[in-house]
């Protein structure tokens, strides 16, 4: 066969690539061409690029080893622009597209000339496993400096530095049967179940479905396997009940057959998702699948043999060689030596020879291999060296020769003379490891099977592994196994299904001889003296490192892995883990199953953060909640505060003119103006965000009495009461007013942030403790909008708009009335959080804007002033009204707040928190009490969170007596003032305390009562 001059390793024919189209791509700054159907890896190999990266620890040159998800070396940085960078893409899984730009993740100035290799070369003897635990300790002060340099060598690829231009989405799916893997087992299982009527999802991580059929030498019904694949896929497409998901990796198997699938929708098309008919499409999609049954048809990964210098570029997996030749039309070298422990790998040599390149020898560890493929190789004139193995590769940046010797597998020794065979490629195969990752995500532990020399999965109920995934390898058996799994799953799901052997294609019988268990190949020198024999290529873990770990007493395989970092790479030990266990077992003189088992965790292969996040980012990260008056607030130029999910107006800065010209008020100016408006005229607050819970039922009143600390038996319809709620530890957890709407009907309000937790709290007590009570809760927070009209002029203003009699006697403080406001049905509550005359108007949310505007239309003449949360805070603090969560912190009882009037110790039912309030610590002297603080210097506004001490001269640690919880400047008092908790505060009124600040200043303040304005509470009653 001839080859293209542009792509020296590309065959003129064969493979499933489209030679009529050329794709141009760049790797490490050089431009190459490939074809549709190529992966980046196959295209690099076609172009004769041997060296794709530098290794992590030793900076050794590395080439492509595998053809799929197990690839440890060809981990590249992808992306033509800064925003589209993707770190650590496996070249073997990246479809080639025109304009692809990639580079090696390690190596400076480039992977070829990398200067770190000298550090690796010279330093490697001093870098046994865990060397960093043993050094860099002296002098102690230097560690952060050492670490700085250690960190410089960290990492593979790099993070983008600009935000992602793409979007990602999620799809929730339900199916009867999920089949993972579309090789022969998965295809036949899916088809069998689909024929029985099950709704099936079939997902495969590769660009094309077919798995091993894409590169097999075998025939089905005397046709190339590709033919059967085509018909089977067509049959699946015909079924409406089948969803085919190519390029889709099942990466996590969670409880109850919840499997996450990552579909790469556009990564084969370009750097960034191209738009489709003018619409953005998602770069990738995460399918969250709930399946009735799951079939794992994930196949097996080939294990490389572990021999000296097995990491030099040109060392490949035998199966990968076949894949590159048969699927991509690429022969990754000129002259091959194959080192194997089994028959199956002979394919690589046959494929190689048929591609027109030379096979120097097949080196077989078995003394008398005897299968059909062996005979075929011999018949083809290939030299077969038995009872031997490649013990060492030669070469610097590419294999130049293989050192081959007779070995004694059991005695782990080299028994014969070493022969050096010139070659540029060494393919190896030590057998196959079923891909058991997903099964082990469920917590099921795999078990070792001597028959297949590998771990086979155990599965939880409803999961079946089939084909290579549980150690069944010959094609005929795999197909039959798949059909059986599909039929069994369908039957378990309640569909009528039977195995019909006639449906199975004919596979030419083939005899395979038994494999031998070979993992690490012995060398003439002891492992610790021989050249490095790599077990985990990505993390540079050698057989010697594992031996050292066991010498040092690390006997559990988990310890060995952690001490050496084996299996912690982005390939998660797909190639290396079993070999590593075998080396540890050898060193410890025990069997592999005695050494432990292997655990895999999600993800099977890495998943883009963006895909996991989906649309739950940016503006959709957490929904913003607005009141119906939001647009008005924005138009007024309000500044907003985040309270829970709500955006609340914080203050409304207005234009003002000063000597410096026109500008906006500062926050202090705006708040002072808003405060004065409320105390002197009338202000309005959008209080719609307060939580509102509608409570109904024959036992509603009883329930309130159990949840609140105070009494509810006598609250008559039309009346409102303030309520305090404690946790079962007796600490205040929420407060608010509750109104009696009717005998069995109440409206509870909660703090804005606690609306949902309080509803949950009510449900918790109702559902778990008092299910016998007839009571129902409904959140009505969003249904009602609330506007607080407050200030001496409030009544005058509201009278203009309502049919409710606002007379001070007819509508008393703590009453509520039903009527109309601005022509709209309304509930009006006469409660006050400002200490002024106040009416809280509740109207249905979609009428709210109309009412709000009507209030302003009439309010102009009273200079109706909107105020925000900051002013609300100042006004309520002047009155000593607490904010739960600001003045309390989960360690404050109602008594600590001085709210004895709100505690019904004599209520018949022991309400939530009552018992806790009788404990010794809640009864002790010297608890922290809520008090007011008056700074000695009236111009000082104390810092919220400032510490309070009795003795500011005390040395550090200085005993703390409390802290400032709320602190403001009061335009009414014309001074700063604060609320605080102070030890024994209620007994210390009039005493001085001190506040030592970070800047060295010490403030002095007097402990006073909490009511700074109108302590008798007369203004709210006017």
């Amino acid at each position, binding site marked *: 066969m001839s080859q293209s001059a542009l792509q020296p390793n590309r065959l003129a024919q064969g493979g499933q690539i489209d030679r009529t189209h050329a794709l141009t791509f760049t790797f490490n700054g050089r431009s190459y061409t490939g074809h549709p159907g190529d992966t980046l890896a196959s295209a690099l190999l076609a172009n004769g690029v041997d060296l794709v990266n530098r290794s992590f620890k030793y900076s050794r040159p590395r080439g492509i080893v595998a053809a799929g998800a197990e690839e440890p070396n060809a981990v590249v940085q992808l992306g033509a622009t800064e925003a589209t960078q993707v770190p650590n893409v496996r070249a073997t899984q990246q479809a080639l597209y025109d304009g692809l730009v990639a580079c090696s993740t390690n190596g400076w100035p480039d992977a070829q000339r990398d200067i770190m290799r000298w550090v690796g070369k010279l330093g490697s003897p001093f870098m*046994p496993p865990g060397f960093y635990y043993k050094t860099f300790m002296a002098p102690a002060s230097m560690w952060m400096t050492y670490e700085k340099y250690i960190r410089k060598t960290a990492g593979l690829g790099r993070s983008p530095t600009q935000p992602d231009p793409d979007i990602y989405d999620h799809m929730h799916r339900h199916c009867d049967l999920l089949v993972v893997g579309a090789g022969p087992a998965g295809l036949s299982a899916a088809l069998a179940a689909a024929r029985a009527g099950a709704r099936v999802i079939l997902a495969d991580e590769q660009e094309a479905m077919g798995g091993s059929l894409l590169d097999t030498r075998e025939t089905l019904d005397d046709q190339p396997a590709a033919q059967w694949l085509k018909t089977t896929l067509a049959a699946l497409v015909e079924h409406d009940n089948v969803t085919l998901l190519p390029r889709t990796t099942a990466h996590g198997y969670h409880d109850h057959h919840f499997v996450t699938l990552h579909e790469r929708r556009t990564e084969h098309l370009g750097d960034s998702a191209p738009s489709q008919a003018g619409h953005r499409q998602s770069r990738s999609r995460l399918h969250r699948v709930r399946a009735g049954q799951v079939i794992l048809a994930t196949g097996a990964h080939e294990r490389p043999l572990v021999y000296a210098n097995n990491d030099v570029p040109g060392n490949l997996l035998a199966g990968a060689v076949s894949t590159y030749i048969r699927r991509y039309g690429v022969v990754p070298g000129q002259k091959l030596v194959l080192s194997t422990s089994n028959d199956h790998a002979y394919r690589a040599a046959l494929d190689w020879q048929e591609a027109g390149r030379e096979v120097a020898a097949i080196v077989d560890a078995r003394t008398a291999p005897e299968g059909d493929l062996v005979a075929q190789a011999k018949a083809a004139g290939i030299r077969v060296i038995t009872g031997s193995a490649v013990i060492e590769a030669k070469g610097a940046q590419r294999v130049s020769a293989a050192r081959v010797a007779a070995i004694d597998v059991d005695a782990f020794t080299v028994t014969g003379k070493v022969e050096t065979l010139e070659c540029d490629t060494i393919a190896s195969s030590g057998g196959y490891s079923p891909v058991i990752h997903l099964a082990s995500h469920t917590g099921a532990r795999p078990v070792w099977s001597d028959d297949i020399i590998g771990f086979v999965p155990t599965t939880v109920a409803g999961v079946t592994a089939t084909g290579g995934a549980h150690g069944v390898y010959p094609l005929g058996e795999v197909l039959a196994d798949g059909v059986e799994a599909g039929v069994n799953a369908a039957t378990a799901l309640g569909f009528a299904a039977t195995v019909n052997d006639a449906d199975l294609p004919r596979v030419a019988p083939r005899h395979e001889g038994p494999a031998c268990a070979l993992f690490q190949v012995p060398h003439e020198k002891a492992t610790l003296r021989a050249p490095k024999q790599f077990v985990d290529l990505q993390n540079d873990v050698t057989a010697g490192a594992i031996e050292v770990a066991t010498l040092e007493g690390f006997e559990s395989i988990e310890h060995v892995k952690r001490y050496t970092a084996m299996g912690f790479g982005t390939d998660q030990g797909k190639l290396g883990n079993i070999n590593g266990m075998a080396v540890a077992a050898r060193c410890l003189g025990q069997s592999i199953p005695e050494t432990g088992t292997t655990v895999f965790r999600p993800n099977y292969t890495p998943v883009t953060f963006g895909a996991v996040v989906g649309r*739950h980012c940016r503006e959709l990260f957490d929904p913003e909640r607005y009141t119906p008056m939001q647009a008005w607030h924005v138009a007024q130029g309000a500044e907003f505060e985040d309270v829970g999910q709500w955006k609340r107006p914080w203050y409304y800065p207005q234009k003002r003119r000063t000597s410096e010209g026109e500008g906006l008020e500062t926050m202090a100016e705006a708040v002072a103006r808003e405060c004065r408006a409320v105390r002197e005229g009338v202000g309005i607050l959008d209080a719609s965000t307060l939580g509102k819970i509608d409570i109904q039922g024959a036992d509603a009143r009883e329930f309130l009495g159990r949840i609140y600390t105070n009494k509810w038996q006598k609250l008559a319809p039309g009346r409102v009461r303030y309520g305090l709620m404690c946790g079962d530890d007796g600490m205040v957890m929420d407060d608010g007013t509750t109104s009696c709407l009717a005998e069995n009907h109440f409206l509870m309000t909660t703090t804005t942030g606690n609306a949902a937790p309080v509803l949950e709290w009510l449900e918790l007590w109702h559902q778990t403790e008092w299910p016998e009570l007839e009571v129902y809760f409904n959140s009505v927070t969003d249904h009602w909008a609330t506007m607080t009209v407050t200030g001496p002029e409030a009544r005058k203003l509201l009278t203009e708009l309502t049919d409710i009699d606002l007379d001070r006697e007819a509508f008393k403080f703590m009453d509520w009335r039903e009527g109309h406001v601005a022509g709209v049905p309304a509930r009006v509550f006469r409660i006050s959080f400002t200490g002024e005359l106040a009416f809280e108007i509740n109207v249905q949310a979609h009428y709210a804007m109309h009412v709000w505007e009507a209030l302003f239309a009439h309010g102009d003449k009273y200079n109706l002033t909107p105020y925000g949360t900051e002013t609300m805070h100042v006004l309520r603090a002047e009155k000593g009204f607490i904010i739960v969560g600001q003045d309390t912190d989960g360690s404050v009882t109602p008594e600590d707040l001085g709210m004895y009037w709100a505690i019904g110790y004599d209520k018949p039912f022991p309400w939530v928190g009552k018992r806790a309030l009788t404990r010794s610590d809640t009864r002790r002297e010297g608890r922290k009490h809520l008090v007011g603080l008056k700074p000695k210097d009236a111009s000082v506004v104390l810092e919220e969170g400032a510490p309070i001490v009795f003795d500011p001269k005390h040395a550090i640690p200085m005993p703390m007596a409390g802290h400032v919880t709320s602190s403001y400047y009061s335009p009414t008092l014309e001074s700063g003032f604060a609320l605080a908790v102070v030890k024994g505060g209620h007994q210390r009124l009039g005493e001085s305390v001190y506040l030592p600040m970070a800047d060295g200043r010490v403030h002095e303040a007097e402990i006073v009562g909490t009511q700074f304005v109108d302590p008798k509470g007369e203004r709210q009653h006017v």
Partner: protein
Amino acid sequence: MQRYSGFGLVKHALRHHEDWQRQWRNPTPKPGYDVIIVGGGGHGLATAYYLAKEHGITNVAVLEKGWLGGGNTARNTTIVRSNYLWDESAALYEHAMKHWEGLSQELNYNVMFSQRGVLNLGHTLQDMRDIQRRVNANRLNGIDGEVLDAEGVQSLVPIMDCSKRARYPVMGASWQPRAGVARHDAVAWGYARAADALGVDLLQNTEVTGFKIRDGQIQGVHTNRGDIASKTVGCVTAGNSSVLAGMAGLNLPLESHPLQALVSEPLKPVLDTVVMSNHVHGYISQSDKGDLVIGAGIDGYNGYGQRGSYPTVEHTLQAIVEMFPIFSRVRMNRQWGGIVDTCPDACPILSKTKVKGLYFNCGWGTGGFKATPGSGHVFAASLAKGEMHPIAAPFSIDRFHSGALIDEHGAAGVAH
């Protein structure tokens, strides 16, 4: 004990690393010990070490049902800080911090305690009040800390979105420069090696299946390898503590929850400090290997399966991408979970029990790694003297009767 040093490494290299000694023995259990520690995590191993080192009690066994350090010690995100709010917890965690600061040298094992600083972000006015309060309290307790505004945060973490465009814009943070991360495995191994060298028997694959109690006094433990006698038993079994307590007829106010963490693929250094946000709920640091180490919140349900639920992971990554939009194309490598023993007040239990000689050290929940040296140190003193160490005393089980809780929930936010 073979001492470790850079020079030693060179010597060993010349000998092809063939004569490294075991880091600890694999002894057979003796019939009895002066003290038995149940649980070979960091806390248990540290306790054993300080018993031997500071109290001369060397006839000690650590009983570990699996492999040393294989519980939460091996699974945590390794954040170490001491800026807790309340005096009692500040004293405990700062005691640990002081030990961290010389631990590598003390153990002759580099635990890679890396004081790269921890930021606890504030996103609301209340967050900022709490931060001010905590940093002030820390200052009076002699613990380093600073309140930063959004600009200060941005200059420490240039890659974070500190703009007003964020859903919950960063308003500031508390910053503890002495805080940081450490290498979790090395902590367990370093204590194990040092304890072993002082004569402590580290018994792996040894599971305690019951207690022998006579007349209200502990006599020893039943294990899968036979009975072992001791009149002093300290249980340091994290997520399994309720199970152990149940074997002794005790009821602890603990809930065991799954807690998850995840890592990205290794990246070139992009993040120097530890960033924690309670409000958007995610925390992140970058390891020396380059992985972004990301912690999730606890799963709401109780359980002993060391796996959590996927929505928790999703939510965590949403928070991370919200804070760091540039990480959207970074890829998540691995996730895992541990079982954390949470207390109603988010503080640990270091306590005697009504069974004489039986002690518990548990309830560290989501944040006990940082306490490892301090916890071991005060617990060892308590076991040695039969009286709780003054720093440990406030953490007695009695607080759940008296109500003297130390509520770090509201205060410290994510307690990692």
